């Protein structure tokens, strides 16, 4: 893919997924991302033994690969004076400083805005946080499960009120991955602004602001009307008022989603596909207004028809349907979805053991129809010496730093 970020260096002092994912997107786009890790502990994410209750293979760990592919890892203990000095030296060569350290830690570690800008006045300073860099709770950390899903009301919206409580996030790093893309977009805009005006900006994205944006239409509606839109319990049948919009169960327990929000133009074609062409001539269903006012009767009829044939039948048969619809896919279905693969959504990187390649998901943006080429996530501190030599350090100084415990 066109390396739109070629020549841009991102200095990342961050852990977990949300903020590193921004670095990963920028690396997909061609940036030189230098990930600073603690020489002994590494990114805290390396310690994850479980993902969504499943065991993780540390050599093929999606929690490391997803947010860190394409980067170089340099092990520096930035809490040591020599390590801190080295960080500032690297900052002088970087375009963007990317961090999710909390305000007090940034200050203590001298990687706050003032110190990084003192090293490089032209550097863009990008912060990711749980709750935002202003206000009484700016010092509070968090994960997407807290700031995005729980506090950010996503869990509330997703969970039908009939359930005994809200659903949990269900997708590890769900809010992180959305939020990371937002940071990457903000950085791209800040680089553009710097190019045009010479001004280097600070930018903030929080997991809370990510939830506000992701739930934006619902939240706008609530602020306007005082009412709240929430998920309903699953049924085989239409959403209120439109029989061509809803989930319908197939004979083998699969689900087909219809989403013809403007049903009028699709009435005859839809009933034909469902094998009940005569319904299109029924005065209750023959045009949009009457169809919508007889939504319950139409929904019942359609639910009965879907229940007569299996998922795979409908999946094939509805391919020529003019209106909007989708098979409700599982993750395994999605991983082999030919349309996704035709759009290069899957990226393969070499495995650390030289074994079968690791399959990864690419970022959502594609340039010029070209697939992403990237490399696996680095091992902790993998590039310390090679990067420092590239930076111009003599081996003697590298040995001194090593002896002092400042680098891996």
């Amino acid at each position: 893919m066109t390396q739109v970020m070629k020549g841009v260096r991102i200095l990342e002092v961050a852990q977990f997924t949300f903020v590193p994912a921004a670095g990963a997107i920028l690396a997909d786009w061609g940036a030189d991302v230098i990930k600073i890790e603690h020489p002994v502990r590494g990114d805290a994410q390396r310690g994850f033994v479980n993902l969504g209750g499943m065991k993780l293979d540390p050599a093929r760990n999606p929690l490391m690969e997803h947010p860190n592919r394409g980067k170089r890892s340099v092990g520096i203990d930035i809490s040591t004076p020599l390590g801190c000095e080295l960080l500032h030296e690297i900052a002088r060569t970087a375009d963007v400083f990317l961090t999710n350290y909390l305000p007090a830690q940034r200050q203590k570690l001298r990687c706050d805005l003032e110190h990084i800008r003192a090293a490089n006045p032209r550097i863009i300073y990008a912060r990711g946080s749980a709750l935002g860099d202003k206000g009484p709770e700016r010092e509070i950390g968090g994960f997407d499960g807290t700031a995005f899903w729980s506090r950010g009301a996503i869990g509330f919206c997703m969970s039908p009120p009939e359930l005994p409580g809200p659903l949990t996030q269900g997708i590890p790093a769900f809010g992180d991955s959305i939020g990371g893309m937002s940071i990457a977009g903000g950085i791209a805009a800040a680089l553009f602004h710097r190019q045009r005006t010479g001004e280097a900006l600070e930018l903030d994205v929080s997991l809370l602001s990510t939830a506000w944006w992701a739930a934006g239409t619902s939240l706008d509606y609530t602020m306007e009307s005082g009412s709240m839109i929430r998920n309903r319990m699953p049924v085989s049948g239409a959403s209120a008022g439109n029989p061509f919009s809803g989930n319908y169960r197939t004979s083998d327990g699969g689900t087909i989603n219809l989403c013809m929000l403007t049903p009028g133009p699709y009435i005859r074609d839809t009933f034909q596909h469902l094998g009940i062409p005569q319904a299109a001539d029924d005065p209750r269903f023959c045009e949009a207004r009457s169809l919508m006012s007889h939504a319950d009767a139409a929904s019942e009829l359609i639910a009965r028809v879907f229940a007569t044939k299996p998922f795979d039948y409908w999946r094939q048969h509805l391919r020529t349907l003019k209106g909007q619809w989708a098979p409700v896919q599982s993750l395994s279905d999605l991983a082999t979805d030919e349309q996704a693969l035709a759009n290069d959504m899957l990226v393969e990187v070499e495995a650390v053991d030289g074994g079968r390649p690791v399959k990864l998901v690419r970022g959502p943006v594609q340039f010029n129809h070209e697939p992403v080429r990237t490399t696996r996530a680095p091992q902790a501190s993998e590039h310390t010496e090679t990067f420092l030599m590239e930076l111009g350090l003599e081996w003697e100084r590298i040995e001194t730093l090593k002896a002092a415990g400042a680098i891996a």
Partner: protein
Amino acid sequence: MKAGTRLKSIVCDTEVMVIRGADVVVECGGAPMAEARPAARAAINPGFAQGTLIGKRYVDAAGTIELLCVKPGQGSLAIGGVALQVKDAKPLPASD
């Protein structure tokens, strides 16, 4: 053996860069590594066939040697028949 030197396995694809050196002979797959790979591969000793992982650092117990694997292979690294250990990050256990 100077820092920065690259050593190649004569039994597999493994290649390492010397990060911290000492005057010792490093073996891979049971055979001494060399700066140039011979035309024909030697046989791997099954006792030293646990494999190497790219990007990992390998150290001896005394901490006098540190090698960075730059190409993985089937052999495993040793000095004088004593297997080298992976110098791994030691994060706190966590779960998502």
